[in-house]
């Protein structure tokens, strides 16, 4: 089985950068670049298979996409079970545009030429689930329009050289009902259509079990699962899908032991039998301080090395 590793989502800012953003320091832009370089270099040194822009300039996972035509910025709302908040997208008109937004945070000049690149996009259904709708008469039109806009983003990312797109879909864990699952599936199909990029749909902040059998049928290459939420998945087989296993806990400062990460991954793989395996954090590392995120990436790399040695 092929295996590798990557990180996704927003990486925590260093205390120096936090301080600079608070003071709106004149050299803020260069500090962001400097910090991105360090985090990218850390990923390379740790031996991760795909290298990501750390997205430290994103305010939340939806914010860049609020610039799509039709969206307005709404109230603050809690990000699932976290004490961190996002601005609710408000659909005040038909959603249009897309194609340049994710690119503003894909620092192509900083990413290494020697390694494949990875980028993040939100799952269209999740965007709609976390939005307020003041325009669409039916939700299906809303989801489809968001999917089309995000598909333009995905195409641009592919054109710029991205090889893997992590699609963040926490809201999918909460979908109950075939109609909505069908809608989510259709949206993913629009997002991925005609592109030669690996798409991994990450499910976190919830229990994936009720939806997993349906999602295994989605038009994607693999599924990201939080290893803390995979209890009770006996009986599921990944089939032709890969697994991005969230085996590094981004919700706790306790440092995961590489040998334990590996043994947990093996145990889960023996049940789910994925086509390929990526070791990942279970979600964005921004929920732990910068120093701990750094340590966790190092441990992730060490775990990957153990797997390689074996």
């Amino acid at each position, binding site marked *: 089985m092929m295996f590798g590793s990557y990180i996704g989502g927003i990486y*925590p*800012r260093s*205390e120096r950068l*936090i301080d600079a*953003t*608070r003071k709106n320091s004149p050299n803020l832009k260069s500090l962001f670049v400097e910090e991105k370089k360090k985090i990218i270099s850390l990923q390379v040194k740790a031996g991760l298979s795909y290298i990501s822009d750390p997205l430290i300039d994103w*305010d*939340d996972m939806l914010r860049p996409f609020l610039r799509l035509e039709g969206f307005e910025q709404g*109230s*603050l*709302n*809690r990000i*699932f*079970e*976290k*004490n*961190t*908040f*996002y*601005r609710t997208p408000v659909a005040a008109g038909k959603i249009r545009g897309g194609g340049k937004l994710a690119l503003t945070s894909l620092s192509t000049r900083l990413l290494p030429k020697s390694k494949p690149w990875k980028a993040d996009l939100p799952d269209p259904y999740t965007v709609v689930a976390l939005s307020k709708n003041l325009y669409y008469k039916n939700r299906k039109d809303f989801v489809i329009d968001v999917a089309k806009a995000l598909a333009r983003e995905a195409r641009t990312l592919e054109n710029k050289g991205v090889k893997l797109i992590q699609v963040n879909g926490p809201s999918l864990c909460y979908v109950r009902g075939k109609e909505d699952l069908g809608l989510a599936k259709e949206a993913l199909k629009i997002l991925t259509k005609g592109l030669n990029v690996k798409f991994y749909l990450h499910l976190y902040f919830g229990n994936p079990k009720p939806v997993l059998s349906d999602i295994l049928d989605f038009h994607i290459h693999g599924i990201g699962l939080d290893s803390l939420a995979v209890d009770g998945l006996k009986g599921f087989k990944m089939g032709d899908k890969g697994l991005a296993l969230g085996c590094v806990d981004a919700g*706790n*400062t*306790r440092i995961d032991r590489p040998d334990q990460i590996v043994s947990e991954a093996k145990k889960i793989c023996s049940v789910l039998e994925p086509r390929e395996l990526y070791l990942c954090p279970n979600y964005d590392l*921004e*929920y*732990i*301080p*910068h*120093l*701990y995120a750094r340590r966790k990436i190092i441990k992730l790399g060490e775990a990957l090395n153990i797997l390689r040695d074996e």
Partner: protein
Amino acid sequence: MKESIFKVQEIGSLRKPEWLIKTLRNPNISQETKKAARDDLAYINVKRMEEAGLDIVYDGEARRTEMYEYAVRNISGFKLTGWIRSWDNKYYRKARVIDKVGYIKPYYLDEYKSVTEIAKKEVKIPITGPYTLADWSYNEYYPKREDLIFDLAKEVINPMLKELVSAGAKIIQLDEPAATTHPNESKLFVEAFNQSVKGVKAKTTVHICYSGDNYTTLFPDILEMKCTQFALEFANRDTSKLGVNRESRQGYSALEAFKEYNDPREIGLGVSDVHVDLIESPEIIRDRILYAEKILGDPTRIYVNPDCGLRTRSRNIAFAKLSRISQGRDLAKKEINQQ
């Protein structure tokens, strides 16, 4: 005349002015001078709240670094780590729990005594509750999360509340912004609250905010809470249209649950959004209050406050918002008295 209706109160923190921050960060200034500077700010905050027309005041948490950090610095078992985003460029410092938590000292007692010497109005002391303290920390010590929460409730918060009551505290607000974070833990949250206030002979209120689900997951467990008042955030999710109808007052739909369950307790009504600089008009504040009165049916149950602490806003805006709340309250009171 219903004079005692719609009392205006603050929720907690106010932004610290630049002069205080510079003083606190200056290594050449003595601890005594720094303490005096904090005391000065506490005095200013209390007086400005009273001038703004508040009926119930505190000191804007002038003596605390921040609601969470101040508490965990004064409880054994915690070790502060780094900064975590709350939203945008707003961050707070989180702590690891590396040992059994324990009560070291009544860390709010001195500030409480000091406020009572300054304030001419009623005093309500805000205290960070056990559930939030646990939820905002990285638990590396307790095998079970609930053990950490109950240790904080029983071993730290409860004895501290009792000491405050002994010192004369009449109104105590437990701040539990994390209450709605985990929808399946509402029972645990309620039990922890009740353990915290067990045997505490004072009016206890709870402040909850930024629920992603409009507080729905707290019901019906929230009805078992041994508190007198629920001080909640609403304005953040409301429209800016004037009106005392459901469409204009979308942000206040959660009030219907209190009515549906026939819960008779007070509501601390969030009428001002603390995350925007817009200083709401007295008329919109009036309508928010009157809508709550229409739903709940009893004006004496309604207290009026900002959605949350105003520390995210500049001091000028914060006090302007508080003044507008008082003005809006006066308009609402006039309407009710004319009925």
